[in-house]
């Protein structure tokens, strides 16, 4: 490898970060869109949310992981704001420590922005993963701070809530809820938001109806966010969307890297690995 090439390889990550930063400042979000063209995802969500009774109690199983939460965060915030806009009451419970940390951060954000605290209940952290899910189906845990919603839900099982929203992550996601909770409760709608890494394992649950609605790709999340009218709850929504221009630039760079790797391989199909080593 020549010295110049070595320098390029060494500085490439920094150049990429600078390039993406510059691209994210370009005012092209009116021309470039992230949304999926598949309207069925949004229609399915809307149908489920429209079908909820007035002032529904929604249990939010909040277990995203620190690594991938940024991917689903805008969708999660819009979804929570959408539910509050529909007069829902939200009870948060976490079964992983990372999920609990992020739930605390989101609840604190709600408090800072001025969300109505009587519509929120913090049921805290429940250890035990699958075993805890089974116990949740039987009885919801007492809240960390008591309020009317927490008192009403105390001692009730999951069958008493009107819907379950699962915000999943790498450690515990919608699959565990479908396997452990769904068979133990009645027809409580189960909605899920998950990072794309979980897509292959949870997509089949959507096809069978075990999950009533699912957002598991950034494009579907963008489509859902675009479709929602939050009314007076706009302040609870995230203030910035991912820059479509930066995404485009990043994907072009990725394609160039993949293309150069593939091109190099195709150009030397029969060359043994030893012969390709630099001298």
């Amino acid at each position, binding site marked *: 490898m020549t010295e110049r090439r070595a320098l390029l390889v060494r*500085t490439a990550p920094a150049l990429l970060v600078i390039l993406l930063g510059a691209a994210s400042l370009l005012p092209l979000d009116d021309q470039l869109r992230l949304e999926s063209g598949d309207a069925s995802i949004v229609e399915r969500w809307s149908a489920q949310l429209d079908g909820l009774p007035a002032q529904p109690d929604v249990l939010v199983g909040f277990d995203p992981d620190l690594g991938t939460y940024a991917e689903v965060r805008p969708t999660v915030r819009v979804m929570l704001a959408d539910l509050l806009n529909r007069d829902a009451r939200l009870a948060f419970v976490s079964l992983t*420590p990372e999920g609990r940390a992020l739930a605390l951060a989101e609840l604190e954000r709600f408090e800072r922005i001025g969300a109505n605290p009587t519509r929120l209940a913090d049921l805290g952290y429940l250890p035990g993963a699958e075993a805890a899910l089974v116990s949740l189906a039987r009885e919801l845990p007492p809240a960390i701070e008591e309020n009317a919603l927490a008192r009403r839900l105390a001692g009730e099982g999951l069958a008493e809530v009107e819907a379950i929203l699962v915000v999943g992550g790498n450690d515990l996601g919608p699959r565990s809820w479908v396997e*452990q909770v769904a068979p133990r409760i009645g027809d409580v709608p189960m909605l899920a938001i998950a990072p794309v890494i979980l897509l292959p394992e949870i997509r089949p649950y959507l096809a069978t109806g075990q999950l009533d609605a699912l957002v598991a790709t950034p*494009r579907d999340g963008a489509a859902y966010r675009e479709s929602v009218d939050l009314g007076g709850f706009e302040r609870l929504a995230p203030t910035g969307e991912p820059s479509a221009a930066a995404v485009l630039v990043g994907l072009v760079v990725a394609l160039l890297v993949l293309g150069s790797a593939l091109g190099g391989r195709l150009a030397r199909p029969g060359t043994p690995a030893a012969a390709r080593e630099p001298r």
Partner: protein
Amino acid sequence: MSGFFGDDTAGMVATWVAALVTIVVLGGLLGERRLFGWTQHLLAGLATGFLALLAVTEVVGPRVVEPLAADPGGRLELWLGLALVGTAAGAPWLPRTVAIVPLAIIIGALAAFALGGAVIGTLLPQLAAVVLVPEESPAAMVAGGAMAVVSALVLFGFIHGMPRGRIGSSAASLGRWLLLAGIGGWLGYLLFSRLLLLLDRIGFLLGDWLGIGR
């Protein structure tokens, strides 16, 4: 904008700390491994501290100590749990047949929940969903048939040790390519999502920290 920090002094300090640590982590891309290693230790330490705090404030305190203090004689399951914890902690000094009991319970319970859930919640409903019945719509029949063919081809691609012939080899090859196409599609989504994660950090530095584009 991450929205995690407010505009007060505490929020400003948190934003600065998060920005500096983000820069150090990004510096790892340029080969600055020493500081990057330090941030890994910081993350591990913070996670351990948070876990300990969580265990004390939300598990041991409210779910073990308080119920036992309120009704010592009425919560036998908690005493049993404490005994198992004590047994696990004292395992190096106890006979093997006693020390293995907590571990056996943990493994048995995990296996039972995982296996039971997988069968009842995944295997049976998914199998039921792929059974084609004549009442299905033509589109569903075609989709189901296509799924069965694709599944068969992919599975056939991994059967080894039997003579295939020309058609069999072609089918196996097609199955492997179908599998690769599926994985490729998923990896495309993964690339997209990883790019969003990087952009989130860049957006945090530009927007939350430097105030550019707010």
